[in-house]
């Protein structure tokens, strides 16, 4: 069983945590996520033009690039994480241009070398899969696609085709870290998605608090939290790991026990 499959096969919903590579002491913050109870790690690849992100992650991208983070550094961070945490799944999330700059074959190869389990690319929809998908699949790296409230049932099969690991449901039409979706709309989306795929479905965008995470975990296979963690990194700098661990622990408790509480 792959690391990603194992994370979603636990007897509780998965907590998926995002931070931006090269922002703050990334290694220490990643360790704090694991110590706090994160089940899956999303490591953001910084990009100059993060057009799907809200202010918190935009700022994290600029902080990271401002410190001189290079693509090689992102893979070094991922590879070192894999050494320290052989069993925790790690996914790279970012934008197409830094991923394809040296060719998709190169990128997929680096993912394998660094022990990256999956890739989420914001701006490669199924229609442009050829730019990245085939090389990732050949290398055995999951290409994790995004479904959104605007993904209608006619499109859904195309989104699912060739994706693996899990499906990332973007619960609001918008950018990261802003408004939160109504719970009943998430419930309806889950019903629709689960009818179309056996992949686990993680829900993200706008999830900030343990309360929100708990509510979503009652209907989803996983809950993604990003901006709230990234804000802590921005606010606390070198002291961030303690704060990151604390929030992660609260989120993990809420997500892992969501169904017990409900029952």
């Amino acid at each position: 069983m792959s690391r990603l499959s194992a994370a979603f096969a636990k007897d509780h919903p998965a907590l998926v945590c995002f931070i931006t590579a090269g922002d703050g002491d990334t290694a220490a913050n990643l360790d704090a996520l694991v110590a706090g109870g994160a089940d899956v790690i999303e490591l953001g690849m910084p990009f100059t033009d993060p057009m799907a992100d809200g202010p918190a992650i935009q700022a994290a991208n600029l902080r990271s690039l401002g410190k001189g983070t290079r693509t090689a550094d992102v893979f070094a961070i991922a590879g070192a994480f894999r050494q320290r945490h052989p069993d925790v799944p790690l996914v790279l999330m970012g934008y197409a241009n830094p991923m394809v700059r040296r060719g998709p074959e190169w990128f997929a190869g680096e993912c394998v070398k660094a022990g990256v389990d999956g890739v989420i690319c914001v701006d490669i929809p199924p229609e442009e899969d050829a730019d990245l998908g085939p090389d990732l699949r050949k290398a055995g790296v999951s290409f994790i696609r995004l479904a959104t409230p605007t993904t209608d049932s006619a499109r859904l099969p195309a989104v699912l085709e060739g994706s693996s690991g899990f499906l990332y449901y973007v619960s609001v039409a918008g950018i990261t870290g802003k408004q939160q979706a109504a719970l009943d709309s998430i419930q309806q989306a889950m019903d629709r998605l689960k009818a179309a795929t056996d992949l686990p479905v993680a829900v993200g965008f706008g999830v900030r608090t343990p309360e929100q995470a708990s509510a979503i975990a009652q209907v989803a296979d996983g809950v993604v939290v990003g901006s709230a963690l990234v804000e802590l990194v921005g606010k606390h700098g070198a002291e961030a790991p303690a704060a990151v661990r604390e929030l992660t622990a609260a989120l993990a408790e809420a997500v892992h026990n969501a169904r017990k509480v409900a029952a």
Partner: protein
Amino acid sequence: MPATRTPANSYRNQPDERGHFGAFGGRYVAETLMPLILDLEKHYRAAKADPAFQAQFDDLLEHYVGRPSPLYHAERLTEHFRKLAPEGKGPKLYFKREELNHTGAHKINNCIGQILLAIRMGKTRIIAETGAGQHGVATATVCARFGLPCVIYMGSTDVARQQPNVFRMKLLGAEVIPVESGAKTLKDAMNEALRDWVANVHDTFYIIGTAAGPHPYPELVRDFQSVIGNETREQIMRAEGRMPDMLLAAVGGGSNAIGLFHPFLDDPDVAMIGVEAGGHGVETSEHAASLTGGAPGILHGNKTYLLQDEDGQITEAHSISAGLDYPGIGPEHSWLHESGRVRYLPINDDQALEAFQLCCKLEGIIPALESSHALAALPQLTAEMDEDTIVVVNVSGRGDKDIFTVADALGVSL
């Protein structure tokens, strides 16, 4: 409508059904936007086939924009270059006078087309990005004309240096939102417009200002701007009884250039030159020449030549002309560049500034700094061309908006 037939090996049959111009173009957008741009494409196909849509577009271009724009023989500039050229050299120069359009540039042609499309799709709110403010003014103009609310994203750096256009947009009823992210210029304004769009897909239409972005934008902007080239064909036939030998246009995103070039692409004897902004020189890091100094990549919905580093991070563009100050270029130009059909060359800030002044003095026309880049390529291109050849330059916009920048560059305080 195209004035020429389309042969099998045509340069005019791009993009393919997936929006690709050879290796360029495409639809590189977030999943939230995909259904919308597929819908836009469907509506555009229907509009293109609808004579009523075309008739309304043509009517507005005639009575609201003031088309056709003249094709003008620039007699004194012709004489000027003949004097500098070897005996018997120096072509006859014509200007396609897009600067005489309502709002002072070619931008309005596209805005008319897109707002008609927005209304046809039942959208009730318009957004746009702008750099210098020309596209913002054109968008605010058509929104006022059709009574739709309008939000313009503009980098705060550009807001500060383009105050007259900011005020124009406000007079026209638009809300101008200064963008504080990144370098606070056109690229960042486009990011912010995309963020707005993704959050408001249900009611909002994004009027993109140039022949770039996700398919079908590069195609539809080109089609709306092709009125420039179609008119030029008719006008030059009337004036000279033959096709021109060369077409010349400035290229930022490239909408004025593709609008002039596209109807002529299958005329093998018509040479075409796209002029990129060389800023302080393409050998420096301060320029906006994506084709000359960039590499293919993915940004803002399309695959095209971009200014970027070896990690694929986008680098800042520089040009004295705010309208050319963008690190990318429309995907059809990337394809025309690689296929060799159009030649692209860079012109630096100081050359553009010189051409700007020359055109003012010899023709009594204050050209936009963008168009001045095209004019500045004339000395190197025309010296070897015979006197009986014909060159058409697209004077894409008027330069009134640029007088502060020019005064500053010349050390004059206003």
